[in-house]
């Protein structure tokens, strides 16, 4: 099926996001990218209560838009795995679980990136991942715990 964006250079919604964090068992980098997120306009959503190894919806949008940044991190140094699943227009485009990590304020970037420099300084790249009809972002921890995962997002709504 053709779409207008094929001819005017727009971004079609992806069917898969592949990067260094998209394969199960990736090693969480020794990097802090949570504590200065707010200073860089990244919206943080804490996980609330989580049941071990059970996905939980943190953000659901019905409609079109653009996902510019999406990353997940643990907020303390307790050993756990982190799972992030992104579903765009009904297709799971990113679903991976880290190796067990004991690094506070670090995790993965699915869309864009963010680098910690100091508590108030950092650097990041933003991407533009389109969704035409829906966006669903779910997270899971290997532990049952509350507010220990932090989702970072920047998105636009059409």
């Amino acid at each position, binding site marked *: 099926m053709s779409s207008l964006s094929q001819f005017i250079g727009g971004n079609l919604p992806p069917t898969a996001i592949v990067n260094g964090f998209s394969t199960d068992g990736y090693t969480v980098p020794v990097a802090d990218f*949570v*504590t*200065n*997120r*707010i200073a860089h306009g990244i919206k*943080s*959503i*804490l*996980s*609330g*209560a989580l049941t071990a190894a059970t996905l*939980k*919806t*943190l*953000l*659901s*949008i*019905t*409609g079109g838009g653009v996902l510019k940044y999406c990353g997940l991190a643990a*907020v303390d140094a307790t050993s756990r795995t982190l799972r992030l699943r992104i579903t765009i227009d009904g297709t799971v485009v990113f679903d991976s679980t880290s190796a067990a990590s004991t690094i506070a304020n670090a995790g993965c970037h699915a869309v864009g990136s963010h680098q910690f*420099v*100091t*508590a*108030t300084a950092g650097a990041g790249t933003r991407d533009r991942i389109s969704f035409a009809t829906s966006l669903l972002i779910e997270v899971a921890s290997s532990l049952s715990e509350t*507010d220990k995962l*932090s989702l970072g997002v920047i998105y636009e*709504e059409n």
Partner: protein
Amino acid sequence: MATQVSTRTNEYGEEVRVTVKGSRITEELVRPPVAPPENQAVARIKALKAKGAIKNDQELYAAVQALVDYLSPGD
């Protein structure tokens, strides 16, 4: 186009903000905001003090210095 905002409760008893604008529906988990780093530092020191881990000014200084190093690596 009018925007309607309401809330519902998820399976964990937490508040979910539902924003409806036309055909668009956005549902987002509502959690307390993440404390800025300086507030996190104060909270950590208070926690250490509550545990009796900080007993004198020298230990307090060491704890503060460790936090400064943590929050501003490379400075």
